[in-house]
């Protein structure tokens, strides 16, 4: 407290008349006082308006305008009061040295190193056992908690629900017939029975495009995958898994609206623009005797974005 004594105590009553530090910052305090009063009155009216608006269940903007406006005027009034009518200062406060003397530091360190460390040093074996137990308490509490958070990925990311013979259905569950799509048309399809499930929508979603009238081979080795010009690609962008929801019909590109990757549907959905690193996986299709579109098999590679276990 020694630094306190060095300060000159000033009696407030004796300095009020002449000390400029205690004068308001405003050049014309009476005008400022009136402005502040107007703000407080506006705040009260506005907040009363809010209560009224709430009682009559007015639209949200009226509630917000009156409530926000009331708080705003209140804030302006209070800030102005503090800034213009209260003692302008400036006032000074000494900054005390926070640090201790070297002796005090040494004594603190000594307690930890010698008193605490000494205990451990004397009973090294016990100390080791204690450390081991504490580590196991940590492991025993954290590991099961972490492990229970979710299932192991296992093969989940490598398969979809498409199988040999699975019907392609649209979002309402209707099977797709060869006569359904005109050339240049597109529809999002799911494995039959999965169209309403979250997994069906998130993982199995597939775009079915009719790009021609005749059987269409998008790439070497995929002969017979595109009967009657119907080809199907996974709808999951290979960048970050957004649905490739835009079809640029004239350029025959599938576009992902998230980060603008573009996939050439005529050429195995190879990306020709944007950050996607891989083509969209193609689903081999077949047409059954009644003319319905079905899958030949599951996708031959994992759908969606890349991950470590993916080859």
């Amino acid at each position, binding site marked *: *407290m020694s630094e*306190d004594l060095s*300060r000159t*105590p*000033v*009696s*407030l009553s004796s300095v009020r008349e002449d000390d400029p530090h205690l004068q308001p910052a405003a050049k014309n305090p009476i005008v400022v006082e009136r402005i502040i009063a107007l703000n407080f009155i506006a705040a009260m009216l506005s907040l009363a308006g809010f209560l009224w608006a709430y009682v009559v269940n007015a639209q*949200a*903007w009226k*509630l*917000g*305008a009156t*409530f*926000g406006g009331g*708080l*705003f005027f*209140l*804030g302006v009034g*209070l800030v102005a*009061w*503090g800034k213009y009518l*209260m*003692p302008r*200062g*400036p*006032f*000074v*406060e000494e*900054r005390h040295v*926070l640090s201790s003397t070297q002796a005090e530091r040494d004594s603190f360190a000594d307690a930890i190193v010698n008193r605490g460390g000494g205990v451990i040093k004397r009973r090294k074996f016990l100390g080791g056992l204690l450390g081991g137990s504490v580590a196991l308490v940590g492991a025993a509490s954290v590991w099961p908690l972490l492990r229970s*958070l*979710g*299932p192991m*990925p296992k093969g*989940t*990311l490598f398969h979809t629900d498409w199988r040999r013979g699975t019907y392609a259905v649209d979002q309402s569950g209707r099977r797709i017939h060869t006569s359904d799509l005109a050339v240049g048309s597109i529809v999002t399809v799911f494995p039959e029975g999965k169209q*309403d499930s*979250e997994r069906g*929508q998130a*993982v199995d*979603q597939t775009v079915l495009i009719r790009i021609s009238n005749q059987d269409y081979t998008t790439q070497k080795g995929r002969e017979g995958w595109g009967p009657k010009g119907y080809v199907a690609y996974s709808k999951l962008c290979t*960048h*970050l*898994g*957004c*649905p490739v929801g835009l079809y640029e019909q004239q350029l025959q590109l599938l576009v992902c*609206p998230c*980060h*603008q990757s573009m996939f050439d549907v005529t050429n195995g959905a190879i*990306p020709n623009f*944007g*950050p996607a*690193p891989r083509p969209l996986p193609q689903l081999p299709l077949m047409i059954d005797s009644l003319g319905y579109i079905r899958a030949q098999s599951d996708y031959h590679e994992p759908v969606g*974005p*890349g*991950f*470590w*276990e*993916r*080859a």
Partner: protein
Amino acid sequence: MSDVVSSKLTKGKTFGAYGRVGQAINELDERLGVAKGGRTFLDKVFPDHWSFMLGEIALYSFVVLLATGVFLTFYYIPSSAIITYHGSYLPLDGQHVTQAYASSVDLSFNVRAGLLMRQMHHWSCDIFTGAIVVHMARVFFTGAFRKPRESNWIVGNLLLILAIANGFLGYSLPDDLVSGTGIRIAFSIAESIPLVGTYAAFFVFGGNFPGASTIPRFYILHVLIIPLIILGLVGAHLFLLVRQKHTQFPGPGRTENNVVGSPMFPVFMAKTAGFLFLVAGVVGLLGAFAQINPIWQFGPYDAAKISYAVQPDWYMGFLDGALRIWPSWSFHSFGHTIPLEITIPSVVLPGIIFTLAFAWPALESKFTGDKAMHHLLDRPSMRPKRTAAGAAVLAFLFTLFIASSTDVIANFGHLSLNSVLWAMRVLTFVVPLVTYPVTYYLAKEMQRAPGSGKRKTTNVVTRTVAGEYVAAPAPAYSEDVHEELEPKVVPTYIEVADPSVSGAVTVRR
């Protein structure tokens, strides 16, 4: 001292010179010893410079977030269970939506002031994160992070990261089409981490995307766990601030050993309480007049659907921009994939930026060899290298933020998306590289020109009666003249304990 107090108390009935307040203080002080510290607290001096208010914006928008957020928890249902919507928003009637989405729409339309509270919550989140960034820039450019305040700089950085994370979690909760796409991207980013990515993603989201656990988990993180950590860190931030006292700009009477400004009570208290109302008021007006996140227009999330011009809230923009402009380089080898096209822009890049931010005080002290205590702030122009480096990093982040709108820019300006993409790729490097030297030399220039930034006064040319012309500078503009008094100690009362007792008892702080 204590016998004065007890003698007053033994007198009974009559309160002392300070009435009931004095009585309450006596009672409290006897038990807790509040008087000395309390007076010191009321006398605590706060610097008057406007830039110290930026942190207050962050603090008070957090207060608004807590208040509006509590309101929202009464009506929001964190469940991905599918229900058929039959609420008051007729265009959605009969659609299958999650309870999370339905309750978000219902609380907007059916709960009184619900929409206002939702919009205020969203706006105050955007302001919270924004104010943190601007406050951080103030601390950075003025060197307020230097010894002894490195730890508070780190606390502040943690707060920024948590604010961004919690903003993202909250943005995801309504389960609308746009935010659902955001969750999908977050899942893919987690999945992309080499070696442990799929496990991380499955454990965080409770299984493969979309996972029924996502919404409930995000909810408890958003409303309890992260806000608790933020509250704790805000407490630590303010504790360190009070313990170490404020920094201040150099000026008359200001030294490394004092703080000059207004006392806590009543001046700062009036200003800061008023400022709380101001921030809340502005958020309220924004909630009233500026629509934000109209989830009923976006529609419910459906993993197979997507909307055009999907963009996250502003504070995630730099990540989205980085993901857009980073090329499609994926690494495949030994039967494994490292999706560099995801990992580098969305994991490595923010990792580098935040590591750099955390380490800056240590790095600067290492390279300048400056180990001294600093309570007086730098003017940014006095530290051209630091200022230029900070400006370059901000310019880099800002360019990435702009890059998150490549498609909108291309559409709006009728430009080829390809040109916009390449322009952003080039600008991401060019803008910071230009910003650095320009800022550096501007700062150097300002050092050389005293009074730079102030208006020059007019030269008034007058002709005397004899026909002689005389040029003289006009007096400075009155609003440019700031006369500041020499700072004075916060006034202390001299209290006479009892007029009948001879001799005054000085109440010391």
